[in-house]
C-alpha cells in the first residue's frame, strides 16, 4: 500500500477533492491511499507527493513559474 499526500488549500471543496482522487487513482493505478493535507500557501490547485516524487500543480508555484518566465525575457 503506497501513500499519496495531496496538499490543497482549505477552500478546496470535498466534491472536487473526490474527483481529483478518482482521477489520480485511475492514472496511477490502484493500491494507493490518499491523505489530504491543507496548506493555505498552495492558494489553488494541488501538490501531489508519492514515493519521493513531487508533482506540483498549485496555483502559487505556477504563478511563480510564469513570473520567472516573464522576467527572464
Amino acid at each position: 500500500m503506497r501513500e499519496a499526500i495531496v496538499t490543497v488549500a482549505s477552500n478546496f471543496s470535498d466534491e472536487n477533492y473526490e474527483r481529483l482522487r478518482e482521477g489520480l487513482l485511475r492514472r496511477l493505478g490502484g493500491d494507493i491511499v490518499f491523505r489530504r493535507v491543507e496548506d493555505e500557501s498552495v492558494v489553488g490547485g494541488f501538490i501531489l507527493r508519492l514515493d519521493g516524487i513531487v508533482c506540483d500543480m498549485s496555483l502559487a508555484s505556477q504563478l511563480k513559474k510564469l513570473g520567472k518566465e516573464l522576467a527572464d525575457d
Partner: protein
Amino acid sequence: MIEPGISEISSFLKEKVAGFRNDPISYHEGKVISVGDGVARVAGLPGCLYGELLEFRGCVYGMAMDLSADGLGAVLFDNADTVAIGDTVLGTGRVAEIPVGEKLLGRVVDPIGRPMDGKPLEADRFLPAERPAPSIIQRRPIDTPLETGILAIDSMIPIGRGQRELIIGDRQTGKTSIALDAIFNQKDTDVYCVYCAIGQKASSIAYTVQTLRENGAMDYTVVVASPASDSPATQYLAPYCACSIAEGFMQKGADVLVVYDDLSKHAVAYRAMSLLLHRPPGREAYPGDIFYLHSRLLERSAALKEEFGGGTITALPIIETAGGNISAYIPTNVISITDGQIFLENELFHSGVRPAVNTGLSVSRVGKASQHKAMRGVSGTLRIDLAQYRELAVFTRFGSDIDESTGRQLRRGECLVDLLKQGKGRPYSLFQEVSVLTAYRADVFLGTPSKEVPARLEKMFAYLHRRCASLEKIVNAHGEMDDEEFEELKNAIAAFGAQTQQ
C-alpha cells in the same frame, strides 16, 4: 533606446501569458531520517550527484557525500540546529560552486562563495569546487621563476611558476610569514594571489587580512577563509574553492600563487567528516583516501602551454609538524606529492636565524631551471658552503686551536648565515639578492659583527642604488647580466667595501 508603449507591453504580456503552459512542476524530494554531528542521512533523492548541493529546510545547505541505494549521507555546511527528522530535502542539481574572476580581488569569501567582509559580491562567473587537473598534454615544463623576495629561498630553493613547494615546520616557526612575504613580493608584478585559511583561529585570519591590506597586497589577492568554528565540511571544501578561484585567473592566462594554510588542519577536518560518515578509519584514523585528498588538490597546480591559455598556478601548501617530525603520516604524504619543501626549524628560529630555513632538508625538485640567470651565476656553491660550514661548526665546537684556513671557512660560514637572515615583510629585489651574494663572495661582510650586518646591508643597497641605478633596472627587468655588467657590480661592491671598511 525607445521606451515601449503601454499597448506594446500589454500585447507582449498577453502573448507570453497565452503561450504559458501550466505543466506540472515535478521533482524529487528526500526526507531526513537521522541528523547529528553535522551529518544527515537522507532517504529518497534517486539520481542525486556525488557532491551535489542539497537544500534543507531553513536555507541550510549540505553536500551529498555517501550515495547508496537506500539513501544518502550528507554533510551540512551550516549550523544543523534547524534540521529535524522528517524534514524535506531538495536536490539543487548543482555541485558546490564558487564565484571566480577579477571581482573577487581584495575580497574575503567563505568556501560557499559568500562574502565575509560585509560588502555585496557581484560575480558573473562560477566554477565548481572540484575540477579535474590539467592533462599531461596541456602542461609545459616550468621555466619562469616566481620570486619570493626571500634570499635564502630564491638562491637555494628556487620556486618556479607552476611549482608546488611545501612549507613545513613546527608551530611558531614562521611558515605563514614566508607565504605572506611571497605574496607581498608579487606587488607590481602580474601575479594574482589566493590565500586560503583552513581551520585557523578567526583572530589569526583577521590579523592576516589586516597585514595583507596594510601592505597593499589585497589589490591582487583573494582570501578564502574557513575558520576553526566552521563545520568540517566547509573546511574540507575551502582549498578546492581557493584552487578554483586560482583556475579562474589561470584560464585567462594569468600567473597565480595559491597558499593553503594549512593542509594538516584540512586533513583533520576531512578525518572528522569521514568518521562521522562511518567510513572505515585507517592509519591515525585518517580515511583511506587521505592521500588522494591532497594529491588531487595539488595536481591542479600547473604551468599550461600557450595554446591552452598559458597561465600557471604555483601552490605553497603549508603543513604543521609536531616536534620537528617530518616523517609523520600527513607530512610524508604531502612531501611526496609536492615538488620540494622548505623545512623550517624551531631551533634555528630561536637562535635568531630567520627565516629559519634548514637548507639541508629543504629542496626544490624543479631546480635551477626556475632561477634567473643572474641568480644562477652567483648562487652556485651556496648550499655546499653552508653544509660544509655546519659540519665544521659541529666538529670544532669544543676544539680551541683551529688552523688558519678552517678558521676562515668558519668565519665565512657565519657571515653567510648572517647575510641570509632577513626581516619579516622586507623582500629583496632580484638585484639586491644578487648583490648580497656577490658581496658574500667578495668577503665584503667578513668581520662585520652579526648585529651590524642588516644596517650595513641597507647601506650597501642605498649605495648601489645611487651608483648602479641603470644596472639595477636591467637586472630587475631581465633577470640576467653579461660579464661586463657583472664586473661593474663587483667593482661597485668592492668600492663600497673599501669605503666602509672598519
